[in-house]
C-alpha cells in the first residue's frame, strides 16, 4: 500500500482517490463471485438463483441489511486491532484471543455485579472487556519490547489458549443450572442497547467511533506522526527521541483492548451470555481485512462490509438451498485469494487515472 501511494503523483485527483479503489473492490467481488459460481454449479445449484437469494437476503430487506451491520461489529473492531499496531510495524495475529479475553472479562463483570444498575454495569463491562483484551496483548508486547520473542508467534499461540479459558470458566464455574455449555442469560442491565427494533447494538457505535478516531490520530496528531515514524524506520525514530519501546507497548495494549471490546460487544450485545466458542474466527477475519485494506480506514470499512454480506448471506444460503454453512467460507476464501493475487486492473481503468 505504501508503495502504491508513493508512486502516485503528489496531486491525487478525486477520480484516482475514489474511483480506482471502488473499481478494484468491484472487480474483486465479481471475480470471487464467478469462482464461487463454479463451485455452486459443481454442486448442482443454480448460481443465479443462489446469488439472488444471497443478495436478496442481505440487501433486499431492512432486516437482512440490519443483520449485515450486526455481523460487521466484531470484525470491524478486530480489524482495527490489527491495523493500529501495523502502523508501527507490529503484527497482531492475536485478535482472536484478545476478543475472547474481552468477552470473558466482560462476562465476569456481568455475572459478578449483576445487581448493579445498567449505567454502572455497562461501563464496567466495557472497561473489563477492554482490559481483558489489553492484558492478552500486553504479554506478547512486553516480551517483544524486551527483545525476547517476536509478537507474531506469541499472539498466535495465545489465540489457541483463549477459547480454552472460556471453556474452563463456562463448564467449570459459570454455567447455568440447566445447561453446562453456556452461562445464564445476562440481566437486562448487562445488555448493550439495541436500535430500531433490530439486533444492531451499541457495539457498532464503538466500531465507527474508534475507526474515526484511528483515522484522526494517524492523520492529524503528533502521536500518529510518531507512530508512522516508527513504522517507517525504527532506528531513525529512536534517534529522533521517540520512545519506541514504550509506544510499542502502549499501542499494542490499546489494540488488544479494542479487540477485547469486540468480544464484550458480542457477549453483551449479540448473545447476552457467554458460550465457549463464541467466535467463528473474527480475529482472523479482522487480520485479513486490515491487511487487505493496507490499514486504510475506508478500506477497512468497505472490506468489513463485504465480508459481513458474505457471512450473513451464507446463513440464508444454508436455509434456502441446503448447503452446509461452512461452504460460505469458500466465497470468503475466493474473495481473499483474488485480493491477495492482486490481478492487475484492465488497461482502460488504469488509463483514466494515469
Amino acid at each position, binding site marked *: 500500500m505504501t508503495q502504491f501511494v508513493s508512486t502516485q503523483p503528489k496531486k491525487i485527483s478525486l477520480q484516482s482517490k475514489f474511483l480506482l479503489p471502488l473499481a478494484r473492490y468491484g472487480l474483486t467481488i465479481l471475480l470471487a463471485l464467478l469462482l464461487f459460481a463454479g*463451485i455452486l454449479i459443481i*454442486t448442482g445449484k443454480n448460481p443465479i438463483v443462489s446469488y439472488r437469494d444471497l443478495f436478496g437476503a442481505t440487501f433486499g430487506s431492512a432486516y437482512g441489511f440490519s443483520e449485515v451491520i450486526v455481523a460487521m461489529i466484531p470484525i470491524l473492531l478486530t480489524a482495527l486491532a490489527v491495523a493500529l499496531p501495523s502502523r508501527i510495524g507490529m*503484527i497482531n*495475529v492475536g485478535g482472536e484471543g484478545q476478543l475472547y479475553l474481552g468477552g470473558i472479562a466482560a462476562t465476569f463483570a456481568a455475572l459478578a455485579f449483576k445487581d448493579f444498575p445498567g449505567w454502572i454495569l455497562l461501563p464496567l463491562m466495557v472497561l473489563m472487556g477492554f482490559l481483558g483484551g489489553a492484558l492478552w496483548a500486553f504479554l506478547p508486547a512486553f*516480551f517483544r519490547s524486551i*527483545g*525476547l*520473542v517476536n509478537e*507474531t*508467534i*506469541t499472539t*498466535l*499461540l*495465545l*489465540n*489457541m*489458549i483463549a477459547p*480454552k*479459558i472460556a*471453556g*474452563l470458566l463456562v*463448564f*467449570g464455574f459459570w454455567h447455568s443450572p440447566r445447561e453446562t455449555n453456556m452461562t445464564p442469560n445476562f440481566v437486562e442491565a448487562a445488555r448493550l442497547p439495541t436500535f430500531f427494533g433490530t439486533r444492531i447494538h451499541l457495539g457498532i457505535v464503538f466500531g465507527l467511533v474508534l475507526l474515526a478516531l484511528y483515522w484522526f490520530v494517524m492523520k492529524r496528531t503528533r502521536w500518529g506522526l510518531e507512530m508512522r515514524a516508527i513504522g517507517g524506520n525504527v532506528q531513525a525514530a529512536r534517534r529522533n527521541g521517540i520512545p519506541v519501546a514504550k509506544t510499542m507497548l502502549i499501542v499494542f495494549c490499546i489494540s488488544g483492548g479494542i479487540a477485547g471490546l469486540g468480544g464484550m460487544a458480542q457477549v453483551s450485545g449479540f448473545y447476552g451470555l457467554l458460550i465457549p466458542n463464541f467466535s467463528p*474466527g473474527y480475529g*482472523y477475519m479482522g*487480520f*485479513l481485512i486490515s*491487511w*487487505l485494506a493496507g490499514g486504510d480506514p475506508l478500506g477497512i470499512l468497505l472490506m468489513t462490509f463485504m465480508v459481513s454480506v458474505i457471512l450473513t448471506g451464507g446463513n440464508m444460503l444454508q436455509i434456502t438451498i441446503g*448447503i*452446509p*454453512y*461452512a*461452504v*460460505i*467460507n*469458500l*466465497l*470468503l*476464501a*475466493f474473495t*481473499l*485469494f483474488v485480493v*491477495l*493475487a*492482486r490481478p492487475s486492473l484492465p488497461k482502460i481503468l488504469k488509463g483514466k487515472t494515469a
Partner: protein
Amino acid sequence: MSLLALLGVLSSTIFSGTSLLYATLGEVVTERSGTVNLGLEGVLLISAATGYGVTILTENPFLGVLAAALTGALVNIVFGYLIVIRKANQLAAGLAVMFFGYGLSALIGKPFVGKMISSLPRYMLPGLGEVPLRYSSLFKFDLLIYLVIPITLLIWWLLYRTRWGLGLRAVGENAETAYASGRNPGLIKFQALIVGGFLAGLGAAHLSIAFTMNWAEYMTGGRGFIAIALVIFSKWHPIRAIAGVIVFSGAVAFQLLLQVSGVNISPFILDMIPYVLTIAVLLIWGGTRKHSAPAMLGRVYQGTE
C-alpha cells in the same frame, strides 16, 4: 489402575500422535524453506475429507491415503501460487487457505457424513505373539504408524544430508544468497510446499481413515495450529519434532489417565499445555540466535534482479 487401562492409553496416544507428527514434519519442511503456512489447518481438513471420500468411493483405504496426500500437495501449490508467484503476504495467504479449507472440506465431506469405511488394515506389532489377545490387540497398528518414524528420519536425511536439503535451508535463511549460488528460490519454495503438503495429507489421512474412521466438519480440531506450535517447540528440526509430539501426546495421555483413575481435572487446562509449553520454551531461548527460526521465515522474497 489396571495394566489394561494403562496400555490402552498408550495405544490411543500413539494413534492420536501420528497424524500430528506427519503434519508437524510437513510444516518443518515448508518453514525451513522460509514459508510459514498458517493454513495448515485448512490443508488437513481438505485432505482428510478427500481421503475419506476416496476411501468410500473406491473401497480402498490405500487409495484414500494417496488421494489425501496428493490433495495436501495440491492445496499447498495454490498457497504457493499466492506467496511465491503473486508475492502475497504469507500470514494473510495462510489464513485465507484456512478459510478455504473450512469451506471446501465441508463441501467435499458432506455426502460422506456418517458413512462407514473400510479403514486402513492393522498389523500386530511383531514379537507379541505370546501376549494375551486382550493386551496385544491394543498394539495392532496401521502402516502409517509404522512408517512415521522412518519418514521422520528420511526427512531429516533429506534436509541435512542432501544437496537439495542444503539448498532448501539456504533459501529459508537467505534467499538472495541462495539465488547468487545458483539456486532457484521460488522453485525450491514450491518443492518444499509440495513435500510439506504431501506429509500433511498423510497426517490427515491417518486421522480420518485410520484413527477416527469418520468425517465431520472441523474434525481436525486445531491440529494444524498445534503442529505449527510444535514446529517452534522442536526448533524447526524433524527429529526434535518427535519429542514435541510426545510432549503433546503425553498431555493427552495424561488427561485420559486421569479420567480412567477418576481424578477430576478440567480437560481445558490440559488442552492448554502444548501452547503454554511452547511459549515457555520460546521465552527460555529468549532471542538466542543458535538453532532459532529460519531467518527469512515469513518474509516475501521479492526476487533478485
